[in-house]
């Protein structure tokens, strides 16, 4: 499903004719353009500031996880195809009953502070992660561990019961040095880049880990400049102050005049019109289905992204190939007549509701705008209320005080659980108050499945229930555009929110 097309845009050419002036350009040039081999520096624009803590177990924002992907590694880590490959471990094996996992520590892996990774560090990491992680799904999976033991450089993990997606949990336990107290402000891991400095609202700097076991990366230094304003970031990129920017929108990419390369992938988000299933009128399945019929997904894609982006049918995005069920995509074709009929039946014609959207996420605000317009044509009166991110978290996510919202959920780690667990009726992050016994049972079955096939089938069953009951109006996985200075190459997409700087190299 994933597209990897590099689109070269024609430069508008008016820029070069006028020549460069003195001053700021000269100074910045040193910082930006130093792409000679062995000493190449990359300047990246980030559209949001980092989390308050850089401790890998405390990270909550996807944007922070995405860049610290370069600093931290687990015993295994995901590759670009979504498989788990050895990282801090040099090999791993699973017993036939799927209960015991054995990892062999890679020889001479060094932390960024110069110390060699020991089995004790691994034990410490598992213990600390289980006790402190902010990720409920990871915490849940870790609580199913019977014990973790080590002998020499061999680590053995015994589970209470079989969990066929356990490697994904292992990959999200970053290996950190034991008893190091400053992870929050000066993170130390084993990844290809070493954290150098962070200045809030300004920049975060990573430098090459020369001791990296898989060979030092090509870039000597990566400076991420923090913008917090998509427009300012875009202007800066177009002017050439940045070498790379992530998560650009199609409109931005189309407007780019500096001749940078554009690489297309997907955001790995489940963008939907999430409906509060616990609140009238959306506690009525027919009303939710009516909305599904009344919203023309193709039209949304066309208007917001010129048809890029991938349609969804349930709470799993397409690059999760193993779990994605393509048959659900067209479950609710655009049919305003049917929508009206269903609304009539439910006694909810003349429906009127408010969509709360976080004002700082333009793609979601745009999608909401299109939905409102589309619904008004179908006689449904929806209105938008833009709220601050903090207010959204407080009112919608935690307070569940909303009728509908447009947002995107990403997977914190590579398992369908990361996307589906939240709609279990008792889950603390079930913001839509979804409550369906069959669904709960399906997820339960998947989590304790004895083999892979059974697990996948159970997850797909759960996805189908979400679709059948029209839990939400599933829209799209947004197209993701990475813009890269043509002096560099090698960017690759992962099936989760991660930006791997170690693959980027000067041309």
């Amino acid at each position, binding site marked *: 499903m994933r597209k990897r097309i590099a689109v070269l845009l024609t430069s508008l050419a008016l820029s070069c004719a006028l020549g460069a002036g003195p001053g700021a350009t000269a100074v910045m040039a040193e910082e930006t353009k130093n792409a000679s081999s062995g000493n190449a520096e990359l300047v990246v624009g980030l559209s949001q500031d980092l989390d308050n803590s850089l401790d890998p177990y405390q990270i909550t924002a996807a944007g922070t996880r995405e860049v610290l992907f370069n600093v931290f590694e687990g015993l295994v880590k995901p590759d670009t195809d979504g498989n788990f490959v050895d990282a801090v471990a040099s090999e791993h094996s699973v017993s036939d009953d799927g209960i015991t996992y054995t990892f062999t520590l890679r020889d001479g892996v060094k932390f960024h502070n110069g110390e060699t990774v020991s089995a004790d560090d691994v034990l410490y990491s598992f213990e600390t992660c289980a006790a402190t992680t902010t990720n409920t799904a990871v915490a849940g999976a870790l609580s199913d561990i019977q014990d973790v033991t080590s002998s020499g450089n061999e680590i053995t993990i015994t589970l209470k019961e079989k969990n066929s997606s356990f490697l994904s949990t292992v990959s999200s336990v970053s290996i950190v040095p034991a008893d190091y107290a400053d992870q929050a402000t000066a993170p130390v891991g084993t990844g290809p880049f070493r954290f150098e400095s962070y200045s809030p609202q300004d920049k975060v700097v990573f430098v090459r880990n020369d001791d990296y076991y898989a060979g030092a990366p090509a870039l000597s230094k990566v400076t991420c400049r923090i913008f917090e304003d998509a427009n300012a970031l875009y202007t800066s990129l177009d002017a050439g102050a940045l070498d790379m920017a992530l998560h650009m*929108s199609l409109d931005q990419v189309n*407007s780019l*005049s500096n001749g940078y390369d554009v690489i297309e992938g997907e955001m790995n988000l489940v963008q939907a019109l999430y409906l509060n299933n616990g609140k009238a009128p959306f506690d009525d399945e027919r009303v939710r289905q009516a909305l599904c019929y009344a919203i023309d997904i193709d039209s949304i894609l066309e*208007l917001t992204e*010129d048809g890029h982006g991938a349609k969804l049918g349930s709470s799993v995005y397409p690059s999760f190939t193993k779990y994605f069920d393509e048959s659900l995509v067209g479950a609710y074709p655009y049919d305003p007549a049917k929508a009206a009929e269903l609304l009539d039946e439910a006694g909810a014609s003349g429906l009127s509701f408010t969509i709360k959207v976080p004002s700082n996420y333009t793609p979601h605000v745009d999608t909401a705008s*299109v939905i409102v*317009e589309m619904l008004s044509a179908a006689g449904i009166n929806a209105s*938008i209320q*833009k709220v*601050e991110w903090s207010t959204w978290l407080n009112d919608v996510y935690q307070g569940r005080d909303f009728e509908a919202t447009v947002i995107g959920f990403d997977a914190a780690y590579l398992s369908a659980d990361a996307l589906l667990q939240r709609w279990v009726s008792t889950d603390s992050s079930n913001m839509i108050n979804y409550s369906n016994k069959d669904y709960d049972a399906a997820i339960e079955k998947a989590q304790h499945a004895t083999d892979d096939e059974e697990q996948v089938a159970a997850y797909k069953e759960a996805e189908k229930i979400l679709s059948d009951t029209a839990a939400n109006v599933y829209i799209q996985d947004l197209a993701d555009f990475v813009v890269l200075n043509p002096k560099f190459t090698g960017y690759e997409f992962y099936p989760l929110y991660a930006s791997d700087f170690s693959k980027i190299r000067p041309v």
Partner: protein
Amino acid sequence: MKNRYLLTGGILSTLVTSVIVTGYFWTPYSTTAMNAREKMQPPSLSHWFGTDNFGRDVFSRVMQGAGCSFLIAVLVVLIGCFAGVVIGSLCGYFGGTADLILMRICDTITAFPAILLALVIISIAGSSVSNIVLALGILFIPSFARVVRTQYAGIRDLNYIKAARLEGVSVPRILYAHILPNTLPVLVPAMTIGFNNAVLAEASMSFLGIGIQPPMASLGSMLKDSQNYLTSAPWYALGAGFSIVLLILSFSLLSEGIQVSRNE
């Protein structure tokens, strides 16, 4: 005929006002209907200011957005002016402890970051045009109150007021029938400046993301939205931006003209 400001200002503001008033009832195209095939069209005879990223006619949206900005600014000035006159007149005329306290409150509002105050009001009451008006209106009271107070403090001891007092004219009558008309030469320019500042303040608020809710637009929120398309669709940002300039310019020229003709 010597007063060119009055003439230019008069013509411009009549033009702007009539476009705005028309916009309340009719726009060449729908301001909300989206059309994927019409996205980002450059200005043409059918779309004077081009179209935006949803294929909506920018001119129609500017008409409506200017109406929204205009309405907000006018209401803000009226609230600020009305409350400012009441507070300023009482403070200036009577003086004393109440004056001291009220002026301290005005100082506090002036010294308080406007964005925080606006955010508080909008998060309590929700984001709507009326709440934006309320938030900005409160912010605009102190400047009016201060101007009015100075005027009243100066006028209250003039002989004709003393005479009125001796004749037993009631206080409200003195305040608003005798003194108020004499403050107009100062109050009217203050209102024009206030109008300009209110347009700018609303635009700044929308620019920081607290303001008008889509699909409705104000000139400020359009400018914010259009920033992404400066290279590919400059007409969008320029249309919104220069409309702000024109809106402010027409009314300040008018006010300039009125002042000049008064002095002659």
